[in-house]
């Protein structure tokens, strides 16, 4: 479904990604693991076209997206939930929810999103999206991209800085949307959380993919993983 080959990316003079290769198959949940600065977030932004310069190939359902502007990549059916969540303070909660345009049929209805995140229904009238708690903002950030009908979701550290009970709820949500047929690429620092939702894990270091571990073999590779992540 998503095929990344030889992806390079630059911020100004600094060369961040040095030929990233991986793929995400239809209906899978795949994580990118790695230390800080390994290039996980840059990989996500490069897929979305949000870096100043990129080269290589990112094919989505066979369509080459390198060279497309971000809005066309979104229209192709990839939705992005950024690190720090990207909730808009000048928009109300419901405006935040309705902001991303529908790109394809098959997205969740607003009602289904509220069923998934009951807290949001209560807070829908809040005038500033940023007045929500961190957990609620994260739910809003995920909820709004479920509406669009995009089948490929990029979630950048959705559990960062959240309380354990919220992290569990995010985990349930990811399993739920996987069950509904969405495909998810997840950036995580927390591989214990990743293990509860993902099918496969790619490990990044210095702007490259250095290993791939199927979730079933995670236990067996624990030592190696500790070594990669420096924990």
């Amino acid at each position, binding site marked *: 479904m998503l095929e990344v080959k030889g992806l390079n990316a630059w911020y100004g003079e600094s060369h961040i990604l040095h030929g990233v290769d991986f793929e995400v198959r239809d209906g899978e949940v795949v994580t990118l693991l790695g230390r800080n600065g390994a290039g996980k977030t840059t990989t996500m932004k490069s897929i979305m076209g949000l870096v100043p310069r990129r080269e290589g190939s990112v094919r989505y359902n066979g369509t080459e997206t390198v060279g497309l502007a*971000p809005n066309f*990549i*979104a229209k192709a059916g990839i939705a*992005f939930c950024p690190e720090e969540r990207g909730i808009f303070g000048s*928009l109300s909660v419901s*405006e935040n929810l309705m*902001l*991303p*345009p529908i790109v394809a049929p098959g997205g969740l209805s607003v009602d289904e999103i509220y069923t998934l995140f009951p807290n949001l229904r209560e807070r829908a009238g809040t005038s500033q999206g940023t007045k929500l708690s961190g957990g609620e903002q994260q739910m809003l950030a995920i909820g709004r991209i479920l509406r*669009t009908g995009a089948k490929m979701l990029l979630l950048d550290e959705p559990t960062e800085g959240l309380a354990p009970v919220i992290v569990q709820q995010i985990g349930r949500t990811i399993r739920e949307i996987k069950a509904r047929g969405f495909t998810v690429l997840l950036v995580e620092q927390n591989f214990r959380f990743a293990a509860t939702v993902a099918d496969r894990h790619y490990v990044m270091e210095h702007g490259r993919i250095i290993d791939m571990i199927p979730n079933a073999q995670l236990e067996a590779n624990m030592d190696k993983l500790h070594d990669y992540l420096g924990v």
Partner: protein
Amino acid sequence: MFTILGIPGPLLFGQLLLGVINGAFYAMLSLGLAVIFGMLNIINFAHGALFMMGAFVSWMLLNYLGIGYFPSLILSPLIVGVFGLVLEKTIISRLYKLDHVYGLLLTFGLALVIEGLFRNAYGSSGMPYRIPDALQGATNLGFMFLPNYRGWVVLVAIVVCLATWAIIEKTFLGARLRAATENAPLVQAFGVDVPRLITLTYAGGIALAAFAGVLAAPIYSVNPNMGSSFINTVFAVVVIGGMGSIMGSIVTGFGLGVIEGLTKVFYPQASATVIFLVMVIVLLAMPRGLFGKAV
């Protein structure tokens, strides 16, 4: 004849009305500047020149094509708005990756070109634009005679300002605009055509300036310098209000017009400088402006 604080009532109300009318133009112009600044991060120095162009286009429509005031009120902003659209597409869009001062310098040059061209073609003396028949005459309000056209300008300006506010604060399109002002790349990554949104914003702000120009044509004579005499004051208005809030721009614009009008009554010598003095006081007391956010 009655007096207030020793000032004859008609004089006081007359100047107040003039103040409100000036304030209406300040509000419409600073509103456009603020919206453009929010999306493009550019101070549109050409705003005054495009205001002037709005007045001139309505004059040309009348004198060359016989198209009257009311159709002009729609046509002239459309024509100048399309001009703004072309400007953004061809020239201004090249600046987004540069330091913001280049936007100021470029639009300053643009203002010189536009004003110079009109001065070459029409001289500096100015040409009259007749008040439309439907709005001739005056109405006795009891305490003063209100020239109908001036009442119309105030009314229309308030409606247009509030409509602009409502579009930005209350509509779906406005929500996209506000979001793009906060974080344009993310909005684009959601599938919104942000470059087109930027073009439309610029064209919209320009159309608003041109609309103000059409309103101004029968009040001030139509002349190439009518914009530049306004724009410097409007910059002070923008500094006073801060550019973070739409309603703030409207309130500041009208409020300063009123202050200017009152100054004309009580201390005429300071009427040209009073807005700048207010700016100094605001800078000292609240440097971010009355409605400003941190910039």
